[in-house]
């Protein structure tokens, strides 16, 4: 039995080891070395890159990334909750609505982000339409700002909020809401005192699934923020391309990962419930 278990675990374990643990080990080594003139790394070993992570300039970028990821996650909760509730109550059409939520996954994220650029840019659909209706004279600055980035992140990661929320809401006994009403709570009061607390595990799972990728997002800030909005993802990418500072890029990557792991660990410890 034990040997069989090892046999079945072997493929996954070896892939994880090879593609996950080994690169992380390489990053760790790189982060402790000196930058090469044309990229790459070279001896001697030093802790310099780690100290630079604490530079206020970069800490500011980290803080900004947390803020953008936090706002995006919050918007996802606000938009995702009613949608998940609606789907969980729609009986036989549930599967149709769920597949509509997942429909965007059938196209590449890159293509969808470009589509947003076509919608938002100065000569894009929205500005052109508003101008031809005579509502505005000058195009609205819809693209290349923080809100465009947040819009792109919310758009991209909303399904990751809706799906876990849906599965939590669907498992809730509908009699609980009836009982709340029966005991005298108005629908809004039932929502606050019964439905919302009971969907906390779904909100937590969704928030984790949305917040983490938003924090490290690279594509969306780069395309919709147009380089004016530096977030951690862009900062890391820069170190490996333009700035040719691999040790520093490795150090930020690992620092970000460590931060996320600490947050997850606090979540796990706080409650005895499953994380996702």
């Amino acid at each position, binding site marked *: 039995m034990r040997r069989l278990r090892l046999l079945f675990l072997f493929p996954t374990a070896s892939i994880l080891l090879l593609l996950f643990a080994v690169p992380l080990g390489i990053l760790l080594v790189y982060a402790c070395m000196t930058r090469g003139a044309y990229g790459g790394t070279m001896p001697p070993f030093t802790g310099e890159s780690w100290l630079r992570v604490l530079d206020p300039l970069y800490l500011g970028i980290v803080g900004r990334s947390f803020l953008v990821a936090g706002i995006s996650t919050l918007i996802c909760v606000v938009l995702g909750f009613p949608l998940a509730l609606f789907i969980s109550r729609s009986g036989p059409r549930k599967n149709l609505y769920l597949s509509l939520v997942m429909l965007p996954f059938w196209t590449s994220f890159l293509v969808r982000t470009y589509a947003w650029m076509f919608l938002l840019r100065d000569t894009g659909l929205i500005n052109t339409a508003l101008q031809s209706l005579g509502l505005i004279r000058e195009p609205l600055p819809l693209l290349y700002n923080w809100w465009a980035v947040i819009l792109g992140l919310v758009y991209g990661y909303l399904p990751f909020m809706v799906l876990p929320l849906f599965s939590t809401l669907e498992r809730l*006994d509908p009699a609980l809401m009836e009982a709340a009403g*029966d*005991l005298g709570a108005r629908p809004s009061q039932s929502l606050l005192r019964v439905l919302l607390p009971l969907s906390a595990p779904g909100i937590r799972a969704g928030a984790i699934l949305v917040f983490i990728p938003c924090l490290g997002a690279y594509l969306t800030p780069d395309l919709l923020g147009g380089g004016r909005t530096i977030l951690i993802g862009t900062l890391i990418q820069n170190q490996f391309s333009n700035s040719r500072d691999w040790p520093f890029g490795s150090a930020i990557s690992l620092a970000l990962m460590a931060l996320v792991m600490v947050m997850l660990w606090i979540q796990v410890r706080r409650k005895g419930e499953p994380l996702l």
Partner: protein
Amino acid sequence: MGHVLELRGLSKHFPNHVALDDLSLEISEGEFFSLLGPSGCGKTTTLRLIAGFEAPTSGEILLRGKPQAALPPHQRKVSTVFQNYALFPHLTVQQNIEFGLRYHPRPDAKESVRECIEMMRLDGKQDRKPAQLSGGEKQRVALARSLVLRPDVLLLDEPLSALDPNLRKQVRTELKALQRRVGITFIFITHDQEEALSVSDRIALLYKGRLEQLGTPRDLYLAPRTRFAAGFLGPVNWVNGFGIRPESTRLSLHAPQETGLQSIPGTVQELMFLGNCLHVETRTADGQTIVAEVAREECTYERGQAVHAFWSRHDEIRCDPS
């Protein structure tokens, strides 16, 4: 005593079927009233209409004379004990019981909660979550949560069905005692005729969305108006168009001579030992089966033996052949 609840021509039609058709009932103050029937008879629909979870297609519900149909559930002075209790899993026993008092504030609220906890024997369990309670305790929390609000009518949706069979009889006795003690009108939904017979002041038997018969347990058992009612309330032998219950049927080796008795010869087909008595199944010459309930010590019959099944004429059930 006035009617606390009155249903007038209450109907609920769904696109493909009629769940309830023209039900009219008057329920008195302090009555233990049962809605009895097989699944799909409309009893749960009736409860949901009274509680306000669903709107009737037509008809009116009057609670102490006030029309209810337009009111949402939270404005009705009725309370429900749900089949699976629907306790709030994130709240403690105490918080579950206090839940409704926030919306119906009373100066003696604290005192009432304490009394209810004591009456329902939940002392010492106030801080537990529903998941840490036994089935019987959950039910008592559900009852306390509703009773603390002093509703005009308490609706109980199959409250015993989630309990183990051994506990059911004990709990139904407790329910009856509780109803007497608090004096609140209970409307008890059940598909179990024995439960309904044992606790109710009156029973409404529903079948296919219609009221089949209304009466005291005695009326329904002894004078059922239809074959369905007779059969639903207990086992019955149908002989030449009338019914006779097994406990009214007796057996003997020789045809009885007294007047007022009806007897039919037959052969013993099967003997079933039920613990407190035996059911002896006999078959008549024309192929009808008659079951007789026989005391343990009186049963000397064997399979294949020729016997006479007999009963007193006034025990016969005569009803519409529906």
